[in-house]
């Protein structure tokens, strides 16, 4: 029997999430004497619903054979990474962009982010692509800066 499938991984992740949040809900102030239900009731109700649904998904995954076609193995993870490394790199670039914003400011961070991201996705194997990357990065970055800073009076970092 296949051990890990997408549904089982989802169900387990949700159950772990429920556990963590339920433990944290212990820090919520209990109801006062004049309150029937306290602040923890609604989130605990939701955590109960999520837990029950996760268990049902897990049970269904074990009982239904079709889910085994969604199995997760090291090979499938490697294959997916090989085919979709650009997605992972794009997430990483965005994280770096968010971290760099307060230090490098909007203009530099944005232009560099756009140049790197477009270059990653489009490739830089021709002069035309390089030119397009630089042009779009500079134009989009500057245009948004002008619109927000001077048009809408919204200060950018």
């Amino acid at each position, binding site marked *: 029997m296949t051990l890990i499938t997408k549904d089982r991984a989802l169900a387990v992740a949700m159950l772990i999430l429920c556990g963590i949040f339920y433990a944290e809900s212990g820090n919520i102030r209990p109801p006062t004497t004049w309150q029937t239900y306290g602040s923890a009731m609604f989130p605990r109700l939701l955590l109960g619903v999520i837990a029950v649904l996760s268990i049902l998904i897990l049970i269904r995954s074990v009982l239904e054979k*079709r889910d085994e076609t969604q199995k997760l193995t090291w090979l499938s993870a490697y294959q997916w990474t090989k085919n979709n490394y650009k997605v992972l790199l794009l997430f990483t670039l965005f994280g770096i962009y968010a971290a760099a914003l307060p230090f490098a400011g909007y203009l530099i961070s*944005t232009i560099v982010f756009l140049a790197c991201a477009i270059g990653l996705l489009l490739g830089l194997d021709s002069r035309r692509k390089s030119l397009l990357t630089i042009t779009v990065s500079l134009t989009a970055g500057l245009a948004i800066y002008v619109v927000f800073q001077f048009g809408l009076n919204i200060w950018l970092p």
Partner: protein
Amino acid sequence: MAEFFTHALSLVSSPSVLLLITIGVLFGIIGGSIPGFTVTMAILVVFPFTFAMDPVSGVSIMIGVFVGGYSGGLVSGVMLGIPGTPSSITTVYDGYPMALKGEPGRALGIGVLASFIGTVISVAVLVLFGPLLAKFSMNFRPWEISTLILFALTLVAGLSNGRLLKGMLAAALGLLITTVGYDRNSNIRFDFDLPTLSSGFEILPVMIGIFAFSQLMENIEKLGDKDSAHKNVSMNVTIPYAKIVKDIMGQKINTLRSSLIGSLVGALPGTGGTVANFISYDQAKKFSRHPEKFGTGIPNGIIASEASNSAVAGGSFVPTLALGIPGDLPMAIMMGVLILHGITPGPLMFEQNPVLVGAIYASLLIGAIVMVLCQLFLVRWFARIALIPQQVLVPVVLMLCAIGAYALNNNLFDIWVLFGFGIIGYLLWKADVPLTPLILGVVLGNNLEQQLFRALELDGSWLTFLTRPLSATFIVLSVLSVILALRQNKKINMQRTDDGGSSPLHRDSTPDHKP
């Protein structure tokens, strides 16, 4: 109401607001015509620009995007054979063949005119039924409101294309997200000792993160899968005006029926243009004297699809304004816009903000007129814009999402919220969890908790939810929607088994990433 509408019309007709509507429509058409971009994304991208505007201007430009976006999918559908938005899928069935026959202008013209008529009819539905529903819902007390929200969430979860359990899980997760931070009793919840979490999460970075990242990364993943065997349609487009009017006049009943289907479907939570265009196309074929001609490039199919998907615009405002429950995903974002401008959609909106309600009606009508003019005069340029590569578009949209999230409160934490929920949204999408119930849960969570607690404070018994007739009705409807969805799931699973499991847990991007 008439004097409020006149006042609203005078506000919306001012040059600055007309310009904003035009910009919104243009952006919506461009967004809708780029395959994979969607109306929702267009709304998300434009939304940050509304922060500095007054409510009427902000809502007007958003409505412009809305109206333009629903008609934008027509352009790439006809010219490239690729629907610009999921709500234009059935437009391709007849629009593209008509274009291949050498009549792209006729296909586009029919679609544009049908879109216009659909929007106008849906505004009439909104004007007629919006106030009626709002008046009726004034009788709703906390029990009815909380069970209505529950019904909306179960309905949306049930419409998740065979993924009921995951849909309900997503809805519950969305509700859970809203519990982070201080609650109505000023008790802090789930801050994990981090001061930044004490104020909870702003709705919009959460929604943008969940929706945008998964949509954009899906577009990147699909880059290698593109079917390049699309025959070329000439970009030289001439609109045969007389022929188009004749085509529409010969399909009066089809146009009216499709518009009403779109309005009704739009008014149901969790549906939207995608469902509307399929139902409408199917009905048009059933009622046609020559159903065998559908799919060969006839006006009937284009009219059915475009009239219905544009009619969703007005229809989806009905529950949003009258009940405070968004009719579809773009409406959920529109609600976020209204809330950010200090306006709470709901039954009282018609009493407390009649001018804004009138401005919405007026903006929809003016937006429809602007849409027709833009499409008819600029359609050949829109067709070229549809060719913008995703490799350029995705990073620019990501950047706009980041700046949009930041501009909300000038708070860098919101960008991290966007990023964090972007990762969560992407992982959930990969796990085949529908995102629409999640986003609706985020939008409705605070209201649900408020109403639930108000009900329990007024009467501590949970049984009151069952003894009050309307509340009990909504509970029964919720249960029925779950049962119907279970039956639907069974049918879908049996079909998958008959297909030999060839497409296990096949994820059609349309239910998740509706326009």
